[in-house]
């Protein structure tokens, strides 16, 4: 599974969460973020914000279904942009 490190001073909160969810809602596939063995639905604002991701945290991307490769690329682009 692809790993992503959060490199953003204030972690992943309202603004980044909204970017991620709004990008993912275009697709039918299931997307989960995994942190410390816990799975979070990446299409839910409340779930992503509730992960409380801090600068330096690492998550795994779990994407299944149609367009999984395209979705992974789009997500990685978003994380790269957020990580500046």
């Amino acid at each position, binding site marked *: 599974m692809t790993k992503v490190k959060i490199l953003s001073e204030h972690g992943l909160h309202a603004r980044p*969460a909204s970017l991620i969810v709004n990008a993912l809602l275009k697709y039918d596939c299931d997307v989960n973020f995994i942190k410390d063995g816990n799975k979070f639905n990446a299409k839910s*604002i409340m779930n992503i914000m509730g992960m409380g991701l801090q600068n330096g945290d690492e998550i795994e991307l779990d994407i299944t279904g149609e367009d999984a490769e395209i979705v992974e690329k789009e997500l990685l682009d978003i994380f790269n942009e957020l990580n500046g």
Partner: protein
Amino acid sequence: MLGFLKKKTIVLKMPINGKLINITEVPDAVFSQKMLGDGFAIEPTEGIVYSPINGKVIQKFPTNHAIGLVTEEGLEILIHFGLDTVELKGEGFKNLVEVGDIITEGQALLEVDLEFLKENNKPIVTPIIFTNFDKIKKFDIKYGEITAKSECCEIILK
């Protein structure tokens, strides 16, 4: 099945003493452009957040500046106290509940030091967002000055 026979209406109680304003007036595009969902905002005159619903706490954030609730009917409500308040790293906020707590209307959830926010140049306007907006058929909001715990919004679920 037969869900259409049940009229599902939720009446929210004002969670903070203050003035209820349109979400589009919040000076942060994440909220005003409804990127997190639709809802309304409050210009607080007091730093106590009361539960607008009967339900459960589903999220609290390490920095305590926001809290996520779900009603008995499954509507998710995010209360995001102030703008850019994530940067305060929890200072000025005192959370009074835990994830999983069953909450009732009017129960105090969060205490906020409004003066501390102002000293740190953080806007205190507080968006209240329905994050699973796809569950809502329509909603009706009362704008203006409203006392905490009085009715402020009626939501009809799909």
